[in-house]
Every structure is written in C-alpha cells, then in structure tokens.
C-alpha cells in the first residue's frame, strides 16, 4: 500500500508535467552553432522532434552529433542559435529543460566507486524522489527494465562495459522523462541486449520525443521514424527512412550514407 501511494505521488508529478505541455514540438533546434575555440563543431543545425518521434542521428566520427546533444541537454552553451525543449529555452531556463530530459551521455559516465544501487539512488534523489519508498520504487523499475538486478550491489568500476552502458540507460529512464536523448545507447551491448534496448525505446516512444545517435544503420531501420544525417556540423538529410530510400532509388542505407558522407573520410 505504502509503495503504491508513493508511486502515485512521484510518477504522477512527472506525467502531469509531461501532459501540461501543449507543444507537439518537444524539441526545437534553430540555427544551432557550437564552436570549440576556433573549431566549428556544429554549423547551423535546425530540426524539430515531435512527441512519438524517434529521431536517428547519423554521421561520421567527429560530425558533431555528441556536441549537438550536449547543447540540447544544457551541458554546453550554444555559440549561436536557440534550443527549445518543451517550450523552455535551454539558455534561459536550463534547469526546467534538464528536468524534462533523460540523457545518456557518450560512454555512459558514472561515479565508479558507487554501487549500482547507490548510484541510481543518487540520481533518484537529485531528480526529486526523496522518500525512500519513492526511491526504491524508481530503482526497482529501471533495474528491471535494464536487467540490472543481478549487479545491484556491485560497484560500477567493476562492471563490464555493457553493464555500465545499461546503468547509464537506467539512469536516463529513471524519472520517466518526456524527452530522451541517447548518445549511442546500444554501444557495447550484446546482440540480445541491443535488441531489447531497441524494443524498449520503441515501446516507450509514443509518449516521448526521442533522439538517439548511432553508427548502426540497421538500428535506424529497425526503430527510427526519422533520420538526420550530419557531416561537418551540417545537416545533409532530414526525412523518414522510407523517403530517403525512395529518393535514392531504393539503395541500401549504408550505401546512401557512404555516398553522402564519403567526402569526409
């Protein structure tokens, strides 16, 4: 009973905040530019993501995918351009934006000396689930979703790469956010887990706006409703996988990808 009450309280607030937002454009990126010193990593990127969309973010190494995501999540400040998440401007009210986003950074960083349970507990508290019942309920849910139950009491530094990745994914899902930003979510996972993570993303996608970057083109085919390809910080493709294939005479995605980005490598 006690757990049930807390569940209603804690998840209720998150869902309410998701439903309050009248925008269908959950993410709106307008003319985004990001410089690192003299290097222009992102050069005038614009796109929108609606609720229900799974946006596949493709591009060769160093194209600016991770940088774009870091700006959207409020970690880096844009050099120019605007990013709106659920109607909030990232530069003006970063904390509101961060509340709405579940973010899996590249390589899934986590505090190595903590156990999985302690780490997820910390994230839960920082996300506003302070009572021990609400916290336990959140951890229980994501540990189940990401198959972490067997390593709950293991310190993160002793986990294998795939398990570390799952901890990062679990952390991003913990508050059931209306926006998911996932930087190479299936990197390092075994084939079964890859499959499972894709299923999970797809299952959750109706209620959320999702951006994921990947180097696995079959993944895009399997789950993405839209593709954006960027090279050298510029968007070269923004359409559905089917449209893209139709426009290129039914070629395979990897051929199209190579054709569009080969000047880079």
């Amino acid at each position, binding site marked *: 009973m006690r757990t049930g009450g807390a569940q209603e309280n804690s998840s209720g607030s998150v869902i309410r905040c998701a439903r309050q937002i009248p925008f269908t454009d959950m993410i709106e990126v307008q003319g985004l530019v990001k410089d690192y010193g003299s290097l222009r990593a992102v050069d005038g990127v614009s796109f929108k993501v609606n609720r229900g969309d799974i946006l596949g973010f493709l591009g060769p190494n160093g194209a600016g995918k991770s940088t774009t995501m*870091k700006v959207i999540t409020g970690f880096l400040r844009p050099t120019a351009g605007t990013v709106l998440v659920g109607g909030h401007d990232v530069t003006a009210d970063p904390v509101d934006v961060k509340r709405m986003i579940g973010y899996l950074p590249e390589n899934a960083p986590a505090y190595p000396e903590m156990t999985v349970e302690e780490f997820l507990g910390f994230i839960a508290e920082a996300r506003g689930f302070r009572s021990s019942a609400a916290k336990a309920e959140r951890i229980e849910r994501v540990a189940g979703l990401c198959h972490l139950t067997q390593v709950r009491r293991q*310190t993160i530094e002793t986990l294998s790469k795939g398990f570390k990745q799952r901890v990062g994914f679990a952390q991003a899902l913990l508050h059931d956010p209306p926006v998911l930003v996932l930087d190479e979510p299936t990197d390092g996972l075994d084939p079964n887990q890859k499959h499972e993570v894709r299923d999970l993303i797809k299952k959750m996608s109706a209620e959320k706006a999702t951006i994921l970057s990947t180097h696995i083109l079959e993944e895009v085919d399997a789950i993405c409703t839209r593709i954006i390809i960027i090279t050298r910080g510029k968007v070269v493709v923004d359409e559905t996988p089917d449209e893209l294939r139709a426009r290129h005479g039914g070629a395979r995605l990897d051929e199209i990808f190579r054709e569009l980005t080969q000047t880079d490598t």
Partner: protein
Amino acid sequence: MSQIPPLFKREFLGYFRSPVAYVFLIVFLMASVGCAFFLGRFFDSNIASLESYFQFSPWLFILFVPAVGMRLWSEEKRSGTIELLFTLPVTTLEAVLAKFLAAWAFLCLAVALSFPMALTVAYLGDPDWGVIGSSYLGCMLMAGAYLGICSLTSAFTKNQVISFVISVFICFVMVLLGWSVFTDFLGGYLTLPSWLVDIVSNFSFTTHFSGFVKGIVDAKDAVFFLSLAGFCLFLNVLVLDR
C-alpha cells in the same frame, strides 16, 4: 538550494567509499599530532593548552587541504561525470556549494578527530576550554578558506596533479605573507614602511588564525576566512559556467 542535500550526501559519502578518507584521516592525525609532540614540544612546555598543536595547522593545511580539494572538479571532468552532474536539474551554484560543503565537512571531521588531544590536556591539567573551543572554530574556518582556493583551482583543469600543485603554491603564499620571518624580511631588508607590511600580512591565513589560538574570537578574522571562501566559490561558479 533544495538540490544541495543529495549532492552533498553523495560527495561526502564518496570519501568513505574509497580508501581516500581513511588514509587521509590517519595520515593527517599522525602528522598533526606528530608536529605537536616533536616540533611543538607538547609535553615539555608543561602548559595545559593545545597551542603547540594548533600552531602547525596553517602549515599542515598547505598540503592536506589541496589533497582533499584537488579532486572536487578535476575528477568530475576527467571521468566525464560532470556531464551527468550538469544535466541533472541543478544549478551551478548548488553543485559548487554542495561539493564545497561536503569537502569542508570532511575536513572539519579530520580536525575534530584530534579531540583526544584536548581530553589528554584536560586529564593532565586544567585547560581553558574557551581557548580550545575558539582554536577549533578558527581551525575549521581556516580550512574553509583553504578549501575555497582548492575548489577554484580544481575547476580549471581535469588534471588533479596540476590542481594540487597550484593549490599548494597559492596556499603556501597565503601562509608566507604573515610568517614572521617573511614580514621581518620585508620590513628589515627591503625597508618597506610598516603600514605596507601590515597590509601584506593582513592577507595571510596565519595573521587571522593567531587570534583564535589565543582564545580571541574576532569577527573580522571569521569574516576574512568566510569571505575568502565565498569569493573563491563565486569565481568557481563563473569558471564552470563559461
């Protein structure tokens, strides 16, 4: 500010999740008690006070506070967890304060663990508890000022060694400014006017700490330590925000 408790808790408990805390506490106690016994002639002085213990605190802190403070931001930057931290719904100020307060609490714990020294003194003689209390207070406030500097320098680099070395250097200068040998040098050899020497030594940790050890709690000294820490943390926020 509501986000401070979870960040504080993670940071503070983090010290005890690795051997860092235990190694630090033990070595710090051995060094500080050792200084009091061997350099300060704790027993020979035959006075029931902790002055011989506390007179070395400014010097010990030069090494020990940077050892705690160097990892505050450098570690987060190197391991990439800073990306995690700053995509949680926290402001930079909250994160800076939470981490600072956690490290400060840890240093206060290290200082407080010398309390058996006070009990020894009380067993052997009849110390002035007011003086002992003010010494502990001053020591903890001073630790906060050192830590502010270390927190700031660690925000500049992902390399803990660089952060440590720069912190040690700045803290050393801050102690040196008030050291009698140095002020005598300024006044004697360089024949600087005494008002100038006073101004220089006014920026030193030792100058503001000496009152506390004698049992004089002067608000000016407390304000010096707190405002130095506050100013460093303010810069710390700016550095992280850029």
